[in-house]
């Protein structure tokens, strides 16, 4: 590993690291059908799917078991046939390690699927219909962020360039690479469907130059000049959406803006493959390729895993753990999250399971070497941010653009004092967000309290006015009575 110096840089993003790949591109195998499949209803952020089956129902593979009512959410499909045995709280794949509502499906080993309705001539279809079909097929970004694809394919601006992200820059992960080698024509088809939906002029597949086999597979699957396949230098994090756009086009997109506002949209290769399956074959997203790797597992393997498969079943398909198995990370070594147990099921965003030894070096004080600032792809000053977040100076954190941090982990890797910088930044970001939320709710409470006080005052005043009126009326009556007496 060496620092990527500016001397060797061509068109690229700032910073970044050349990391050792540790990639073992193994053939995809099919694990045995698990006895139990687990589907968390929690999708992302504040989005949940709503179960539409009851305990005791029998379902078929591909049947929707939880619906989504907006484009920002996607339905959940059963990934094999069987019986719904429970809707209960189970630990889910989330950094919190919390339990949340999950639909539990007991498989019946028949693996019966719903009949499919493919629509092959996609160019004759309405584009809204295609988007709807993509949404109903449960497709989300399979690169790791799991953002609903149909929503991303409905930009408010015109798109001129679609970039298919095949960079897969994080070490250890090889699920996209093997998918490109084994299914290049399908990926190209999927890319063309997305290009048609977006009416984009250009479609570029961007692949790291460390994947020659996948590159040639894509080249030989491409007819004429439908789309371009571009090799990009293997510098982590070149697969970051905005980093990749900068490498391809030289355009730097501000953090506050979406790529679509500049006419670009990125989609992962596995997402393109899922779109092909949904549109051309009518298959919903029920499985994905996942890499099981690390010293802690006997056989490094790419697997075609059903969504909802518990991690332990996948580990069993790789001959089990080795004595080195100490921690389980979902995602890559740079951006993955630690899972508390192997009973947790894989979700659509799970591209990799890394099982290895716990390697938590003792961190020392910051020596202000500045290496972290050199490698930061967002051109931030991590050492300064760390100082401010460490001392809880949240305002200064915001002033030094903490929100721009993409949590890629480059600074963690390069730091000679082994300071867990990204973790500190995550906490700082959460604190700032939490404060904003609190002040918003405090402002609401204050407004309601003010209204309440004003109402009380108004009632009081009205009472006084009424009293005065009554008094005046009584005075009048008294005066009239006195007059009558006199006369």
């Amino acid at each position, binding site marked *: 590993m060496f620092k990527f110096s500016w001397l060797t840089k061509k068109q690229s993003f700032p910073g970044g690291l050349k990391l050792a790949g540790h990639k073992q591109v193994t053939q995809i195998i099919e694990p045995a059908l698990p006895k139990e499949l687990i589907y968390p209803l*929690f999708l992302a*952020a*504040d989005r*949940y799917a709503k179960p539409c089956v009851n305990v005791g129902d029998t379902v078929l593979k591909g049947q929707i078991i939880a619906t989504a009512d907006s484009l920002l959410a996607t339905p959940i499909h059963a990934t094999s046939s069987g019986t719904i045995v429970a809707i209960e709280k189970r630990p*889910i794949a*989330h*950094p*919190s390690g*919390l339990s*949340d509502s999950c639909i539990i499906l007991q498989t019946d080993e028949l693996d019966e699927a719903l009949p499919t309705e493919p629509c092959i001539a996609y160019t004759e279809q309405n584009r809204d219909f295609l988007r709807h079909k993509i949404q109903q097929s449960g497709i989300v970004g399979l690169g790791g962020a799991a953002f609903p694809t149909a929503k991303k394919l409905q930009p408010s601006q015109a798109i001129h360039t679609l970039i298919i992200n095949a960079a897969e820059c994080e070490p250890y992960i090889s699920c996209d690479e093997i998918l490109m080698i084994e299914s290049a024509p399908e990926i190209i088809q999927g890319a063309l469907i997305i290009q048609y939906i977006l009416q984009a002029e250009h479609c570029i597949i961007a692949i790291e130059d460390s994947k020659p086999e996948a590159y040639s597979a894509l080249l030989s699957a491409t007819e004429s000049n439908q789309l371009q396949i571009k090799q990009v230098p293997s510098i982590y994090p070149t697969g970051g959406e905005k980093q990749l756009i900068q490498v391809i086009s030289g355009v730097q997109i501000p953090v506050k803006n979406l790529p679509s506002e500049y006419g670009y949209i990125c989609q992962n290769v596995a997402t393109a493959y899922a779109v092909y399956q949904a549109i051309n074959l009518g298959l919903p997203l029920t499985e994905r390729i996942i890499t099981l790797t690390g010293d802690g597992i006997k056989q490094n393997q790419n697997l075609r895993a059903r969504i909802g498969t518990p991690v332990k079943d996948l580990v069993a398909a790789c001959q089990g753990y080795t004595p080195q198995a100490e921690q389980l990370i979902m995602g890559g070594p740079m951006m993955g999250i630690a899972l508390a147990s192997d009973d947790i099921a894989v979700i659509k965003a799970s591209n990799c399971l890394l099982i290895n030894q716990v390697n938590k070096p003792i961190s020392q004080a910051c020596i202000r070497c500045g290496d972290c600032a050199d490698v930061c792809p967002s051109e931030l000053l991590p050492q300064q941010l760390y100082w401010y977040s460490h001392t809880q100076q949240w305002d200064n954190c915001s002033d030094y653009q903490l929100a721009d941090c993409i949590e890629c982990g480059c600074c963690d890797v390069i730091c000679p004092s082994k300071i867990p910088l990204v*973790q500190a930044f*995550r*906490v700082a*970001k*959460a*604190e700032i*967000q*939490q404060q904003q939320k*609190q*002040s918003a709710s*405090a*402002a*609401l*409470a*204050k407004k*309601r*309290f003010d*209204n*309440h*006080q004003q109402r009380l005052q108004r009632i009081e005043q009205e009472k006084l006015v009424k009293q005065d009126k009554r008094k005046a009326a009584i005075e009048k009556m008294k005066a009239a009575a006195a007059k009558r007496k006199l006369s």
Partner: protein
Amino acid sequence: MLILCLLFGFLGLLLGVAAKKFKVQGDPLVDQIDALLPQTQCGQCNYIGCRPYAEAIANNEADINQCPPNGEAGIIALANLLGKEAKPLNSEFGEQKAAAVAFIIEQDCIGCVKCIPPCPVDAILGASKQMHTVISSECTGCELCISPCPVDCIVMVPVETTPEHWHWSQHV
């Protein structure tokens, strides 16, 4: 000399106009203190709401450690603003509790409307002889509705952490 005099005269006029035109309305210190208070309007500080307490702090009538919902972090923020020394929360006024909202056990509610006037943010809905309920998104957790209830049907329910509301500063 004359030019200088004229210039000074003009600048003086400009300053005078600016001072009139951009005069700060209200008491900015009270606003700043009020902005640091949690706005639960719970009255645990012995003032009827957060703003009266802010006014009392600004007038040096109250100390900065009388607000239990604000906790230690809030006291530090107030101390920083006012250039005072931070101190621990005064336990005479109560202890800081985990976030909670009021909940009315509907089977037990007799519809007496006694809990409605004390609510500082009008978060309780109900009418005479009708069942009442708390709008939990508006409830500040001030507990002022608890003691007026003659049948003790209002309980404080802690706010549960779900993946939706979890954030990284809760990471262990």
